[in-house]
């Protein structure tokens, strides 16, 4: 149970626990009031049913979808993350509203709204696959997926995006089935559970690293192909071969980039993919990305903010009522998320600047020792050495390390990630204090009076 909050005997945790216990007991008491109407899906790990809630006075609420998931294989925790996010006020437009989420031991029982509408597979079959349809549906889908990546405290990677897991409801595409979705963990080297549908899942999902936002980008690329061509996407990602199959060149390039085997080469985020797709739309339909209150400027990707209602091309199926996305994600975390998206070459330039600055300061300190100004000349040489070397060279070294862009370094030496940002700050502080203390003691030993 890795994500369980453990009870500590502190006041605020106790209150939290008591409230959670209350909620749990109420949910257990309600357990008998759910009437199962029909079973949608049953497997060893998950049972999905349509249920109705029978009120005490004979009335019935519903329908709802109830999933009972066996979490011992490491699946299903995504629902708890979604529940927590929805409960704390995050508006996720393309996710079904979770009504109840109760965990008993290894079994998770989730009740959520029943979304009416055909799956994307049915919709494409009914309406007929075309480039138009793809250009209409995919941007909304990308937006839904980037909501999941960006609006939660930690990005939620769906990992099973495919036509049968997307419902085309009257208010746009709704993503369902978070069975194998998982929250991105900063310290995981690779996913512990490997699942997915072969045609839509990227290679890293089968054990070669941790899946991240770009795994969903891969699936979205495959979905783009599916919407445009109407058939299961083949296992090719070269633009030429895609064009040979009949996909127009603009889309072929996009699909090709999105479905590259190497995640580094793909679009860095669902948002970037969305903009690329929108740029393929014929001029008349507008290219603005309407996103409300996206107040994180994602580095390197200028986002056009528009507060008008979304441009709705053609069919009324896609009228989405746009609402401001209130988010309770901490600003700091979103800042880091957007920082992590800066291109690597920029990071290298930054590193060079930091090191040059540090080098200059070290040089300056050497000069101060060797050619002191009038004030310092009075001080003994050994003291000057101690003072400048300690305070400038030693004291500023952890600060310089703190400022470096260490992403490539972490890729090469993952163990270094143990030294978190907070720890680095602490080290800077401790080193600064230690150097000051030593310098002060040295000055006392040298008999210097600080005026």
């Amino acid at each position, binding site marked *: *149970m890795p994500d*369980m*909050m*453990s*009870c500590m*005997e502190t006041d605020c945790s106790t209150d939290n*626990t*008591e409230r*959670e*216990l209350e909620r*749990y*007991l109420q949910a*257990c*008491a309600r*357990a*008998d009031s759910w009437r199962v109407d029909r079973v949608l*899906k049953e*497997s*060893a*790990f998950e049972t999905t049913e349509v249920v109705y809630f029978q009120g005490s006075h004979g009335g019935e609420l519903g329908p709802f979808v109830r999933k009972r998931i066996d979490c*011992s*294989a490491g699946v299903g925790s995504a629902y708890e993350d979604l529940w927590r996010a929805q409960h704390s006020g995050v508006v996720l437009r393309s996710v079904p509203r979770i009504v109840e989420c109760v*965990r*008993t*031991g*290894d079994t998770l029982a989730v009740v959520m709204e029943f979304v009416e509408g055909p799956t994307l*597979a049915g919709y494409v079959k009914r309406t007929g696959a075309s480039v138009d349809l793809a250009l209409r549906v995919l941007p909304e889908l990308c937006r839904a997926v980037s909501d999941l990546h960006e609006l939660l405290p930690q990005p939620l990677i769906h990992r*099973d995006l*495919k*036509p*049968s897991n997307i419902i085309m409801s009257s208010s746009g595409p709704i993503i369902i089935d978070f069975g*194998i979705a998982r929250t991105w963990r900063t310290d995981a080297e690779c996913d512990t559970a*490997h*699942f*997915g*549908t*072969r*045609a839509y899942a990227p290679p890293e999902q089968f054990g070669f690293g941790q899946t991240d936002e770009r795994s969903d980008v891969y699936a979205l690329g495959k979905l783009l192909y599916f919407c445009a061509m109407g058939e*299961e996407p083949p296992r090719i990602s070269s633009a030429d071969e895609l064009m040979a199959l009949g996909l127009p060149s603009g889309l072929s390039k996009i699909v090709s980039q999105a479905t590259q085997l190497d995640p580094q080469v793909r679009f860095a985020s669902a948002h970037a993919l969305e903009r690329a797709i929108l740029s393929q739309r014929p001029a008349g339909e507008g290219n603005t990305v309407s996103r409300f209150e996206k107040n994180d400027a994602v580095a390197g990707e200028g986002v056009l903010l528009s507060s008008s209602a979304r441009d709705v091309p053609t069919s009324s199926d896609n009228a989405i009522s746009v609402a401001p996305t209130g988010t309770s994600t901490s600003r700091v975390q979103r800042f880091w998320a957007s920082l992590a998206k800066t291109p690597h070459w920029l990071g290298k330039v930054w590193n060079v600047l930091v090191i040059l600055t540090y080098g200059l300061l070290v040089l300056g300190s050497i000069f101060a020792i060797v050619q002191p100004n009038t004030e310092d000349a009075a001080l003994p040489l050994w003291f000057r050495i101690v003072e400048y070397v300690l305070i400038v060279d030693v004291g500023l070294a952890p600060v310089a390390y703190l400022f470096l862009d260490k992403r490539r370094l972490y890729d090469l030496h993952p163990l270094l990630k143990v030294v978190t940002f907070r720890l680095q700050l602490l080290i800077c502080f401790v080193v600064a204090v230690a150097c000051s203390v030593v310098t002060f003691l040295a000055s006392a030993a040298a008999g210097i009076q600080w005026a």
Partner: protein
Amino acid sequence: MTDRLTEEVLQELLEAPSIDSFIAEHEFPSCTLAEYLQQLLEQKHLERARVVRMADLNETFGYQIFTGARNPSRNKVLQIAFAMALTLKETNRALSASGASTLNCKNRRDAIIIFCLDHGCSLQKVNEELFRLGEETVC
């Protein structure tokens, strides 16, 4: 058809379970409480004497439970479960091994105990909660 694929892959990849889970699932089909507790002690690297102390059990009685000389009541098994920080699955297995009924979330008292087990609460904490909610405490 695509739905099938996820399930199939799931099955495929899980056909070869990890060694640990295999041991956990298959080594004790139907054993006695004492054997199961011994196995859990080894698995979790715990000391019997400490567990007995933390479970608030009489030393001799505790020893007898672990050797199989005495069969404990349901509450005593729960005390041990909290002392060893067992999961719900493990606790239920211990309860059925001792012949007692497993924890059922439809029973209010059991539900509180389940919740506390899932949240890693101490024996003291679960007693507090049971008392606060007007149920019979564990010990």
